[in-house]
């Protein structure tokens, strides 16, 4: 453990401000920074690994169709900049409708799952009732359930009920998928607001409902909003069930998927872009709540 270069007998320690001491300290500090530098380098490498492809799609989505088809591809992005690809995509058959469908499905899913999940989350957080653990276990099990397995029987069910090929049926399914996560997140959000706050409100004269509305709601709104955003994006991105459950009224992912084989590159790039944009925006708002959501997985 003895580093001979720094070992000097006590009586002959050079004074603090002497050049050898200054030099030695500088060397030692630099050695300590090495690890940090390595970490920075790794971070940047990984960041590039993630950003470069996204950047590429973006730039392809905003150039001329020729550039999209051209080879070899330029590194300079957005040259030439053009909305050609975009307009081509948006004018392609069924695209605007599918965009609309995607929005409708996502919004309905958002609203429906929030309405149903929030009370359930509140109940799980605030009340200790028999069956609570069972309920939570069921919710967790549902969350881990493969969507593939669910889609076919639901398709058959909807077919028989006459609801097939409608945005409503897809929204119903997406709600079923999104609900478990929402319940779990909402319950953890409510759990983080101590009940004493509600009680304090009541002590000062508010009814339980008022207490809830003025005290609890502002505190839980961000978390609930975050999980709502998560639901929106989940629905927006979902492709398997959308392809199975819709035919004429496709959502965007279903449309893109089914026309993949036949569509030109430009179409795909623009489609990919549209699929990505909400996620990127959403991730920006949600990164604070990420650990709340996925961290809760570890019971």
């Amino acid at each position, binding site marked *: 453990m003895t580093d001979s270069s720094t070992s*000097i007998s006590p009586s002959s320690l050079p004074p603090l401000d002497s050049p050898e001491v200054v030099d030695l*300290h500088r060397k030692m500090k630099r050695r300590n920074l090495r690890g940090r530098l390595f970490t920075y380098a790794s971070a940047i490498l990984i960041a590039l690994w993630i950003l470069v492809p996204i950047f590429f799609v973006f730039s392809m989505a905003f150039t001329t169709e020729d550039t999209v088809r051209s080879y070899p591809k330029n590194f300079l992005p957005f040259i030439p900049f053009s909305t050609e690809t975009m307009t081509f995509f948006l004018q392609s058959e069924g695209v605007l409708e599918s965009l609309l469908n995607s929005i409708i499905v996502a919004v309905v899913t958002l609203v429906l799952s929030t309405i149903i999940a929030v009370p359930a989350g509140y109940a799980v957080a605030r009340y200790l009732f028999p069956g609570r653990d069972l309920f939570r276990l069921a919710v967790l099990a549902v969350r881990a359930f493969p969507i593939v397995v669910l889609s076919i029987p639901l398709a058959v069910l909807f077919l028989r009920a006459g609801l097939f090929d409608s945005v409503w049926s897809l929204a119903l399914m997406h709600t079923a998928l999104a609900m478990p996560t929402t319940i779990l997140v909402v319950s953890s959000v409510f759990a983080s607001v101590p009940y004493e706050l509600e009680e304090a409100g009541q002590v000062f004269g508010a009814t339980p409902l008022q207490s809830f509305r003025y005290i609890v709601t502002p505190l839980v709104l961000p978390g609930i909003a975050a999980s709502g955003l998560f639901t929106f994006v989940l629905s927006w991105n979902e492709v398997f069930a959308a392809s199975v459950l819709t035919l004429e009224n496709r959502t965007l992912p279903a449309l893109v998927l089914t026309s993949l084989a036949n569509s030109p590159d430009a179409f795909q790039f623009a489609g990919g872009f549209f699929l990505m944009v909400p996620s990127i925006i959403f991730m920006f708002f949600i990164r604070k709540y990420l650990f709340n959501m996925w961290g809760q997985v570890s019971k």
Partner: protein
Amino acid sequence: MSEIRIESVNKSFGDKLAVNDANLTIHEQEFLVLVGPSGCGKTTLLRAIAGLGMADSGRITIGGRDVTYLPPRQRNISMVFQSYAIFPHMTVRDNIGFGLKMNGEDSKEIDRRVNDAAELLHIEELLDRRPAAMSGGQRQRVAVARALAMQAEVLLMDEPLSNLDALLRLEMRAELKKLLAEVNATTVYVTHDQIEALSMGDRVAVMKDGIIQQVADPTTVYDRPANRFVGSFIGNPPMNFVDGVLDRSSGGPVAVKVGEVTLSPDAEVDSAVRDINGDRVVVGIRAENMEALAEAKDGAFAVDVSVVEPLGSQNLLTMDVAGHRMKISTHPSFPVEAGQRLWIRFPGDKIRWVDPNTEAMIYE
């Protein structure tokens, strides 16, 4: 080989200067206690010695080696953390032997030292258990055993007793002191409890706001504090302080008026007190150093006792002297009740004089 020298060490966190130009030499095998209120920088200084939060400037040497910017494991040190920092997924045996294993000692040696350390701390029967089921006191012993097994030259302890309940703390204090006396390491011990500091250390370093106020053996720190802060921080109840006015008018020794009472500094301090800038001086005296008399005597002055706190081993009386509240401690056999009039005398050698301009205590 294990003298610790701290020279002009500074450490800041953002705008706050946590350790301000610290200079301290800890002698080989000395047990030094760093004590002070929370936020005074004692833990920061300890961690700088450990290498866990390195100094911004200055130098720290151990046994003549400049370790200022060396990583902790190259410093030949060992530490007991405030939260014990036991590894929850390992048995006690593996916990204690962790450092030895990291250093590549052979397994026989590890076993021997682990068993020795466990014996010292009386935790042999816990060796194959996991920390999860253990009490705080047991975990603390594991932490100490782990540190001792390293047989390092320097042992650092960060408030090892503060998470224990009062009774356990008392027991462990004595046990730890005895144990550490047999260990040959230079020990730096951080605590906020001044009783712990006085009872355990060879020397005590009192810190406040990042600055070392005084470094001396317990008796000196108690009896001859360097400044007002040390006087009031060390000792329970804290030292009493009252404001006084200097009267240099007479040609002879200077007089200090505290309200109606006139005090005269002893001969040793007379000239120093006289040299104080201005007319004010602060008079300090400890509760147990005042004389309480049932009737008026020479040099004593009258006070009214407002509160009597019977503490069992002593009575703590609160009284008003020239507008200041002071506490005096009397033997339980001395009869007194609230509202009673008493006569108090300040023995000259027990009075401490504070220069109000510097807050420093004057001794000569």
